């Protein structure tokens, strides 16, 4: 029987329509702590904690905060969820709840249960270390190692955040007998092979890659989902229901990770949080783009495969991966092929991926260029969508640009390489004069449009400014 364990109690999934998200499922069960604020994963009012395999790949379970509005309830078959109600109750507050309540961290209170869950997950993060013990210390990290990025996907319209920050930084560490903390010592629940049928749609979590590829081969219209951070928005905001929805996020073949001298191979269904943790800084450009990719709540669900699969021209991964000359591995029932990412995109949300193919891996060749950077232009530094994004990978030898790879997002119908700019740089000395000339070329790349995020003029200007900024910051 399909069920989700919520706050320690199994809840039956029978009869739940496949499009029903975890948020609505919880609320229908009478757990109204999680709230709908936007239904598109932007506000965090619906955040809950789920027990997941640790992001660093170790055995232990890890409490991971996600937006419950984006995930179909079916996706959590067999999984364990903790909501604000499960963390504590009046008279027995959880430390996160205690600090938030006492410090004025809630005003209207509507966003608060979501904050509680995002903060709870960070409270239980296994590698959270006090600043004195090697943890980072900056404006976004408390002396207790609490990383404010953990709540970058939670919006509060009342407090102005200061008391929430103070509450976060006042937290201690879980005591040894903390039941929710102790859950981390055992393995996370395994993924269940699931099939949930409704009137309009069917949600399937295949047991193997072979089964997934078979289903994909049978139904060209099937929707492939991993973290559902894109599909969930379509379901909630655009009323899309899908016919066959195939969940691939827990397939082992899509969750591999390896680093050799020659390449980094990243499973397409690893979450961005998992990739960041496992890379541990070995691809600074990828770490930089992940740090600016959505919010922690999104990164805990979103995958590279999804970001490339949806093929959005404003996805944050492609500009960086294009600069790194990444390849994608596409698998079908007939076998697999490896394709340079530069040959993957063909138009607005279009690619050379056939309907029966699945992205299984992203491969970045090593060694990586010496000068890499990721520039993202947006209205808001946390959790915003790019107006323009630029990924750089430059090889400088004796002050000369030997090789330049530049990926662009937000300036054309699809992510593109800035080929003319690359040509304007290669073979030339890395000097202000070269950069001036390249800046003019870069500003003319693509065909930017004006929309609610930015004007075309600003987008072009930002392209031109980007390389000047790179030069200024790389030239002390």
């Amino acid at each position, binding site marked *: 029987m399909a069920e989700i364990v919520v706050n320690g109690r199994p809840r039956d999934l029978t009869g739940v*329509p496949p499009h029903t998200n975890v948020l609505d499922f919880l*609320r229908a069960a009478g757990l*109204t*702590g999680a*709230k709908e*604020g*936007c*239904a598109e994963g932007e506000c965090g009012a619906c955040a809950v904690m789920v027990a997941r395999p640790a992001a660093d790949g170790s055995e232990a379970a890890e409490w991971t905060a996600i937006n419950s509005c984006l995930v179909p309830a079916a996706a959590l078959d067999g999984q364990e969820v903790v909501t*604000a*109600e499960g963390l*504590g*109750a*009046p008279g027995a*507050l959880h430390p*996160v*709840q205690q600090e938030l*309540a006492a*410090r*004025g*961290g*809630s*005003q*209207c*209170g*509507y966003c*608060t*249960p979501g904050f*509680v869950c995002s903060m709870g997950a960070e409270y239980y993060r296994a590698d959270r270390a006090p600043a004195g013990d090697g943890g980072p210390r900056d404006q976004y990290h408390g002396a207790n190692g609490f990383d*404010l990025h953990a*709540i*970058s996907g939670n*919006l509060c*319209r*009342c*407090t*102005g*955040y*200061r*008391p929430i*920050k103070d509450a976060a930084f006042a937290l201690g560490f879980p005591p040894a007998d903390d039941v929710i903390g102790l859950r981390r010592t055992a393995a996370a629940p395994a993924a269940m092979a699931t099939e949930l049928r409704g009137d309009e749609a069917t949600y399937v979590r295949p047991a193997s890659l072979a089964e997934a590829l078979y289903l994909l081969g049978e139904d060209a219209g099937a929707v492939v989902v991993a973290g559902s951070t894109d599909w969930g*928005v379509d379901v909630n*905001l655009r*009323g899309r229901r899908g016919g066959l929805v195939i969940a691939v996020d827990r397939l082992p073949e899509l969750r591999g990770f390896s680093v050799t001298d020659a390449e980094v191979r990243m499973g397409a269904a690893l979450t961005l949080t998992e990739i960041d943790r496992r890379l541990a800084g070995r691809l600074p450009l990828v770490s930089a783009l992940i740090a600016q990719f959505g919010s922690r709540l999104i990164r805990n669900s979103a995958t590279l495969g999804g970001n490339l699969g949806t093929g959005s021209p404003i996805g944050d991964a492609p500009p960086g991966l294009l600069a790194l000359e990444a390849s994608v591995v596409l698998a079908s029932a007939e076998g697999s092929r490896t394709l340079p990412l530069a040959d993957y995109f063909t138009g607005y949300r279009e690619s050379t991926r056939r309907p029966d193919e699945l992205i299984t891996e992203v491969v970045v060749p090593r060694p990586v260029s010496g000068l890499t950077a990721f520039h993202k*232009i*947006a*209205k*808001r530094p*946390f959790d*915003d969508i790019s*107006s323009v994004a630029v990924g750089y990978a430059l090889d400088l030898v004796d002050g000369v640009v030997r090789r330049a790879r530049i990926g662009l997002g937000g300036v054309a119908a699809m992510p593109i390489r800035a080929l003319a700019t690359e040509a304007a740089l290669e073979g030339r000395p890395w000097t202000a004069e070269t950069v001036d000339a390249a800046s003019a070329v870069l500003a003319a790349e693509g065909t930017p449009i004006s929309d*609610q*995020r930015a*004007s075309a003029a*600003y987008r072009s*200007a*930002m392209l031109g400014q*980007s390389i*000047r*900024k790179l030069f*200024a910051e790389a030239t002390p």
Partner: protein
Amino acid sequence: MTTIARPVGTPLSRRPDDPVVGTPLPHESAVLHVTGQALYTDDLVGRTSNVLHAHPVQAPHAHATITGLDVAAAYDVPGVVRVLTDADVPGTNDAGVKHDEPLFPTEVMYHGHAICWVLGESLEAARQGAAAVRATYAELPALLTVEEAIAAASFQGARPTLARGDSAAGMGRAARVFEGVTSFAGQEHFYLETHCSLALVDENGQVFVQSSTQHPTETQEIVAHVLSVPSHAVTVQCLRMGGGFGGKEMQPHGLAAVAALGATLTGRPVRVRLTRAQDMTMTGKRHGFHAAWTAGFDADGLFTALEATLTSDGGWSLDLSEPVLSRAMCHVDNAYWIPDITVHGRIARTHKTSQTAFRGFGGPQGMLVIEDIIGRCAPALGIDPAELRRRNFYAEGQATPYGQPVRHPGRLLAAWEQVAGTSSLAARRAEIDRWNGRERHRKRGIAITPVKFGISFNLTAFNQAGALVHVYKDGSVLVTHGGTEMGQGLHTKMLQVAATALRVPLERVRLAPTRTDKVPNTSATAASASADLNGGAVKDACEQILGRLEPIRDQLRDPSWEELVAAAYRERVQLWAAGFYKTEGLSWDAAAMSGHPFKYFAYGAAVSEVEVDGFTGAYTTRRVDIVHDVGDSLSPLVDLGQIEGGFVQGAGWLTLEDLRWDVSDGPGRGRLTTQAASTYKLPSFSELPEQFHVALLDEAHEDGVVYGSKAVGEPPLMLALSVREALRDACAAFGPAGHSVELASPATPEAVYWALCAARAAGRAS
């Protein structure tokens, strides 16, 4: 000769020893908030059986006549129970108090206008039913921007003029006269809880509506007139709201009426809950304004005169646009003495959502105009903007342009000097100038701005409130008052007021949800005045009860509260009371735009420092210091939260939040293009100032207000003007001395980038 220490203040403002007011307490619902136990209107749906869900049919044109509406296909969708159209309205087909907002329109007045509503067994069924409705339209020309409306002379409502002296003569006295236009955008409320109503009908036809409303009485009245029943047949309750900010003052009424109409017609509970996109495309926002101005300064930089025409973007109907405009005009002076002044006001009618109340209610718009004038003129006058502001402050004995004496101007100066001191403004100014001299690609800016904000509703009649205080036989106390709780901490303060007035521990007092059958004829929870008004009413009720208890107390020897109450009951003393309060001394002539509309002014001053990236225009707020006047705080933790939260919300309006409509001539003309959290960005953690210091002004006791306190909800929002002025200062640092920076509002990174480019260009030109 000895001086006898007299108690401070009036009977209303004086505090007893050891008052519960003044204690820093968390929000009264904080424990419920953090545990997910606090209930909001939509949380009641799961506790109500047999609920029908409503979904609107939204028109896809900004302006059109509805030429056909065929709802038959909706009934073919399984689960659709009823489609509500204008033919179903038994009473007045209107959702407002100005009778210009048909609940079911025949003419579409904005993109997304709801033309009918579908009720379904599930939200999914209602949504699909709404999609099946066939409507046809004859498109009409649409006005989208204020500029378009001005060109077409499309205005609505009153066109007031506020004048004092002879502004033409004042201009004649000026050493320098400047002209300009200041246009700026509105703001989406983005309360985290979207609008929600849940209506039930009982066996007698009594309608009970639970609604996320800041104005339960008006919601009750609108529901009653739509249903054609008397007000006593409708009860409205609000448990709490997930934020309001003015957006739930007028806008809930029509939605509650749809729920009530549906419940009346079907006999079943009906839930109307807007999705975020529906909320953003259907409900009103802060008014954007267009201001054309001429300002005169004498040789010392003192204002001689101001002439301005303020045109607000009212959207399709009047709503609260007239009082918002009045307040804007009454705050165009902000903290400054302007001897000769003429301000014209008018409200553009455009084909957009009907813009409405939003925290500050026109005050922010008025102040933005004068601060923009000062920020732009200061470089030309060769006077540091901080000094120019300070020089023009009101002095004791001076009056506002509408004739109200400015009381306690010294408190504004005290706040200003205190924050200048604690922020080390002068030293940091010098340090920033040195830093800017060294850095080519980044510049910092710093600015100090004042706030003077009038407290009370301009319309005198609204300045009244009621409360109902029950003392039960066991000594426990239940307080009901007319105000609603939306996170601002009103209920917390009212608990503190009741505990103080009755001299009982806080734990003995409980607060009941706001409902119209407990306290009738309430004013909106708005204008920051709810603690003043409802606090006065709660205190009055408590004192009535205490007065009745005094003879009993005299008969007993030092009784405990419980003993006193029990004895009083035995003596047949009434242990409950209805309290009432009205603000004394107010007057307002709306036609002449003159009088004494405000009980007092709330003051504050803020210093903000920003750093701007010259490559992109991106910026960070490095530090903010605030000294704000809340009188003697009723609840310091609550007040601190209001100041910080108001400031960040104001900074969001001025820098980040960017409402965009499709103003092209394409098929999407009039569509709100920022109708989601993914496109409309609020301040998040990344906008929290790196350092944020807030202090309450000392020695700020306010006579004639409950326990010496002052209102706090709105005034701090306008302290965020300091961020905008700091950005202007940083942009100026990219250009030559004396360059006047024109900065769009909101000052998004893109706007800042263009402003600093203009400054650089001025440098190259000079």
